[in-house]
């Protein structure tokens, strides 16, 4: 917090008026708008997310190394991207 004291000397009165200004310094933590929007778009993309999680569970025991969930992963992130893209630039300079 910045405290600025400005002496405001009023000629008509013998006592100077003190003018205290508080200014908020910018947040130390900047929030990346894209991450924020991706989080807020999660409820819209629950179905592909659940499909992905189901796939993760299905292949959990697999040791062959051939099984993977790229398809479901892509579906989920495609849904998120479609949701985020129109809104993102409004949050940027």
């Amino acid at each position: 917090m910045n405290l600025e004291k400005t002496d405001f000397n009023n000629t008509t009165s013998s006592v100077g008026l003190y003018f205290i200004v508080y200014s908020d310094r910018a947040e130390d933590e900047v929030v990346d708008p894209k991450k924020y929007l991706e989080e807020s778009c999660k409820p819209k993309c629950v179905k592909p997310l659940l499909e992905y999680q189901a796939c993760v569970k299905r292949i959990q025991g697999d040791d062959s190394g051939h099984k993977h969930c790229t398809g479901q992963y892509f579906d989920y992130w495609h849904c998120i991207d479609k949701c985020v893209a129109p809104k993102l630039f409004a949050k940027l300079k």
Partner: protein
Amino acid sequence: MVGGGVIQQILRRKLHSQSLTTPVRSWFSSKNAHVEAGSSGVRAFALLGAGVTGLLSFSTVASADEAEHGLACPDYPWPHDGILSSYDHASIRRGHQVYQQVCASCHSMSLISYRDLVGVAYTEEEAKAMAAEIEVVDGPNDEGEMFTRPGKLSDRLPQPYANESAARFANGGAYPPDLSLITKARHNGQNYVFALLTGYRDPPAGISIREGLHYNPYFPGGAIAMPKMLNDEAVEYEDGVPATEAQMGKDVVSFLSWAAEPEMEERKLMGFKWIFLLSLALLQAAYYRRLKWSVLKSRKLVLDVVN
């Protein structure tokens, strides 16, 4: 994917229907003996061959297909997208700062000169000062020797590596491409580069990336040599704009778009002007054509019957 399965079924049905009418043995015998009678047999055999090949390639392609092409990037509403929209030059200036501080250590932009930045992102004095910070090899001088001097406006942006081999050697065999034309050199370049830079994520379950590479779903194949370079507040912008990952991504892509298409604004103005003028010319030409043809088109032909 679905089409492949449907074609499979159609082929099977065709083959089944044929096999009901003609047993297999007679196919081959008829094929050898008579050309006409065997033509349907040959066709069926060919269909079977096509079906089998389709099935075999189908099963291997489907699993590799998605990662091979990379995740399709979304379309972002770039401020310079409209038919008469110009670049956001403040964004270009910030983007150049990001390039210089984050990207220039590995990526060259050897088609851009300092003088190109004047009037676009920097004033002449600023650009001169920036150029003077680099050392350029020049020569030969009167004694026949090469010498180094501070940069001038006419010099190109400095290259991080002397040649491609040096670049590959320093980056584990991968060549960081020159960025002068990158947004034109990639399909849907602007959106792709933005998605790529801001799209570093954990890989999906079952995918492991070898040491030295990083996962990025937008990169064809998924394994990219470049690590995530845009992190919040990696750069401090001169104009005080908060340098989040998305902000830096947008600014650097604006800069790269300008670098690849510096003529864009003039082109759009010219396009608008000439399309307008040519539309007027079209109307004039249409009127003139109809005027000239009206003589013929308003002819009356009288058919007289001679008895």
